[in-house]
């Protein structure tokens, strides 16, 4: 009983709202446009569609009053109204009803998520058009691509708006909207332990291709010099006299103060004199490394060690 009265009620309200203005519907909606805006090629039942739109609009305002409390469930009123519409429309009732309910749920969630949603768009017609598409899929599966070709993510030829608004709202269109939802941000950004591998041939060739992308003829002489510097053909500025020369890490004092290496020699006598002259000469020698200088002194030590007997004959002490 209750159901029947509800039905008649809905039917009457539907008939009342047939004449409602389309723009009023749109203004009243605060739901973001989903980017799937299929332009259907069947405008024949627009009158019926408008009435359905109006009904849905009326029903939508009800959840808008208490949005926070409801999470996933819809009010039984909505469900009843949806079934009423399904009866009213000449399509398959089950499909229509399930579609309607699904859309209502979806829009509830969306409207909660986006309180600051921009201009209200033609979401209502989306519901209708989505229904249409699903319906035609069952009947005329082959023509589905034709419908789909009408995909137009910009709704500018659906409604006339000021261009700046179009651009602003469409900006959201490109960045906001459904994504593939295959990858998860957390899973992608977590640092996996990657083993260090030497770059393979593929990597090297890819890097070469990338470098070739930015190749342009040189614009001025400085750019040419930069290229030469990178090749290794030109000194680096500011000029460092000792570029590329490390001297094995030895310091200037190791070159100059070579007396330390004379501690095995006698402290006085001709040998000492001689060795001091040797170290004096070595300290002024820019061409030998410290190691070579020490080797030089070593050689003298070995030499004098060998010639011990001659030294003894002449009375010179070595050890």
């Amino acid at each position, binding site marked *: 009983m209750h159901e029947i009265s509800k039905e008649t009620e809905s039917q009457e309200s539907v008939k009342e709202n047939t004449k409602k203005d389309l723009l009023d519907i749109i203004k009243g909606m605060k739901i973001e446009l989903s980017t799937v805006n299929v332009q259907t090629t069947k405008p024949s039942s627009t009158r019926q569609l408008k009435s359905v739109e109006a009904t849905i609009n009326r029903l939508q305002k009800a959840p808008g009053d208490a949005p926070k409390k409801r999470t996933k469930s819809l009010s039984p009123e909505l469900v009843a109204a949806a079934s009423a519409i399904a009866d009213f429309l000449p399509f398959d009732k089950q499909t229509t009803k399930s579609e309607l309910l699904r859309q209502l749920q979806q829009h509830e969630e969306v409207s909660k998520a986006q309180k600051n949603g921009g201009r209200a768009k033609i979401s209502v017609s989306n519901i209708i058009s989505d229904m249409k598409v699903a319906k035609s899929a069952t009947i005329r599966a082959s023509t589905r691509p034709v419908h789909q070709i009408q995909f137009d993510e910009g709704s500018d030829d659906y409604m006339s708006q000021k261009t700046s608004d179009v651009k602003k709202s469409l900006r959201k269109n490109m960045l906001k909207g459904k*994504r593939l939802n295959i990858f998860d941000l957390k899973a992608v950004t977590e640092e996996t332990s990657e083993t260090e591998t030497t770059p393979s*041939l593929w990597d090297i060739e890819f890097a070469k291709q990338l470098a070739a992308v*930015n190749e342009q003829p040189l614009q001025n002489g*400085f*750019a040419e010099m930069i290229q030469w510097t990178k090749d290794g053909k030109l000194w680096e500025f500011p000029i460092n006299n000792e570029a590329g020369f490390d001297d094995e890490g030895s310091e200037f004092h190791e070159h100059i103060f070579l007396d330390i290496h004379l501690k095995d020699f006698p402290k006085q006598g001709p040998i000492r004199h001689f060795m001091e002259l040797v170290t004096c000469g070595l300290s002024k020698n820019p061409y030998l490394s410290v190691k070579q200088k020490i080797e030089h002194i070593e050689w003298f030590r070995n030499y004098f060690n060998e010639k011990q007997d001659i030294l003894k004959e002449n009375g010179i002490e070595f050890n």
Partner: protein
Amino acid sequence: MAAAATSRCLGFRCRLCLKLRGQRASPCGQISSCRFYSGSATLPKVEGTNITGIEEVVIPRKKTWDKVAVLQALASTVSRDPTAAPYAFQDDPYLIPASSMESRLFLLAKKSGENAAKFIINLHPKYFQKDIAEPHIPCLMPEYFEPQIEDISEAALKERIKLKKVKASVDMFDQLLQAGTTVSLETSNSLLDLLCYYGDREPSTDNHFQQSEKSEELEEDTGENDKKSKADDQFGVTWRAKNNAERIFALIPEKNSYSYCTMIRGMVKHRALVQALNLYAELLNNRLQADVYTFNALIEATALNMNEKSEDKWNNILELLKQMAAQKVKPNLQTFNNILKCLRRFHAFGRLPGLQTFREMKAIGIEPSLATYHHVIQLFYHHENPSKGSSRIIYDIMNEITGQKFTPKDPDDDMFFQSAMRVCSFLRDLELAYQVHGLLNTGDNWKFIGPDHRRNFYYSKFFSLLCLMEQIDVTLKWYKDLVPSVFFPRSQTLIDLLQALDVANRLEVIPQIWKDSKEYGHTFRSDLKEEILMLMARDQHPPELQVAFADCAADIKSTYESQDARKTAPDWPANSLNCIAVLFLRAGRTQEAWKMLGLFRKHNKIPGNKLLNEFMDSAKASNSPAQAIEVVKLAGAFSLPICEALTQRVMADFAISQEQKEALGNLTSPTSDSDSDSDSDISEGI
């Protein structure tokens, strides 16, 4: 680069710098703010900067500069000189190119010289061993391309792989297997790499001269990408069945996932798509995991598969992506760029998936590169079919990336500016074009303009759009700035410029444009010359301008004459003859104008009515009935309907003798008969 040997003994190796915490801080205004320096210095933090006591000495922070910092700072002070030829050319009048053909030729010549020198050095390394440079410059020494290790060992195999000798490596591998030595998995994998990358062919050695023109040239993009093989597969190298790669792959006893991956990548690269997908199935059966590069290749394989419809292909791609997520393989930029590239084949169906892919990419934090935006543009503006309603996505894109500085991340990055400017030109939106051009001039983005032909395309479209939409003064400023230092205009571009001048009523610039056209190699372009002549001859102008126009016309006439000298069948367009004659007349060069009349007969072209009337006026002005009669005779010779009117005019305006009247009468009566008499008239006229 003399060796500074003497300074070593006084070597002041300044180790006074403190052991600083090597933190990178961006240098911003450390020195006086008006001095510019390149942004490549690193500024380590210094300890002990909190000065409490006065005795504490704070040593200023030591900057470490990049090795090219000084040069970069100097380079930033130099900007492009619009009056000079580009730096890459020798600064000699003979060696500065005058057209885009020449410019390309000269650059290729320069590069080929370098390559020839390198080739000779590498061919005879023993003559180039002397090394006087200090420090040593490795890149100037000869390179060794022949393998040195001769015995049969894994080290020899590795060397051959490193030198990219495909056949030698395969032979060495076979020899090793015959000898019974096992080859390590790593070496086998690198051998597989070599084989798969080059498709079992030797790598091409002269790759400098191979213009890897990708087949996605925008102007000729006719949507045949499915059938044409792209330049990716190395100029038609296809995967032969049962080639060495497959054979060796079968021989490896324990394949790991890398082996499978490299095989799949090689197969996709050389268009063995079905085999690649089968191998992927085998990989999954063996419970191995593919890496991200393999998935990228598989996505490409799915999209190139011919036998399926677009939705099925898209579903397959989605399947692959889901598998990727399930196996916890992280997608990279190439993944998404490959998807977008493949979606282009699906035309209109690919638009929504393309947007979804783009949003997915942003959602997981992968920064799109210029190639991404290029693919999106191509997806939405592929067929410039206005009836479908042009998308406004280009505005979104430009809003998104204005002001951003890009680095190369994808080999297709240099295609963006070309496609963006094409769209601007198609949409006729100058503001957007300025935005794109602004992006080009941001930071180092100018390097993404791409090779010569792409740069020329970009600037041609840009300049044509300027001619169409911008005020003429601004257009002329751009003209002076861009031409010829940035690009050489095509004849169509010059015609656009002429039309812009026409609209803005600045026809006095035309002689200058003609001079420039000659310089850029358009001397013999008949459409350009006709346009110039037509614009000059259309209206009357003040006398000085008329003189300038006549000079220009004479110049054009001489080009026609020199063209005649070469051709056997001379061919002057009728329009040109008309215009040149008119211009001569108006400038007072009557003799030359009368000579032009002779040319009409010679080239069998018909003079226009307006022209004949002007001749008549000129004859009147110089008060010479003989000339007037000449005009009438000419008209009669061609059996022109205006002949009657001219005769009337002669009779009325000129004082002619009786014989002349009779002659005129003779002329007119035969012309009123049938056309068969025109032959006799022509002979009369001559």
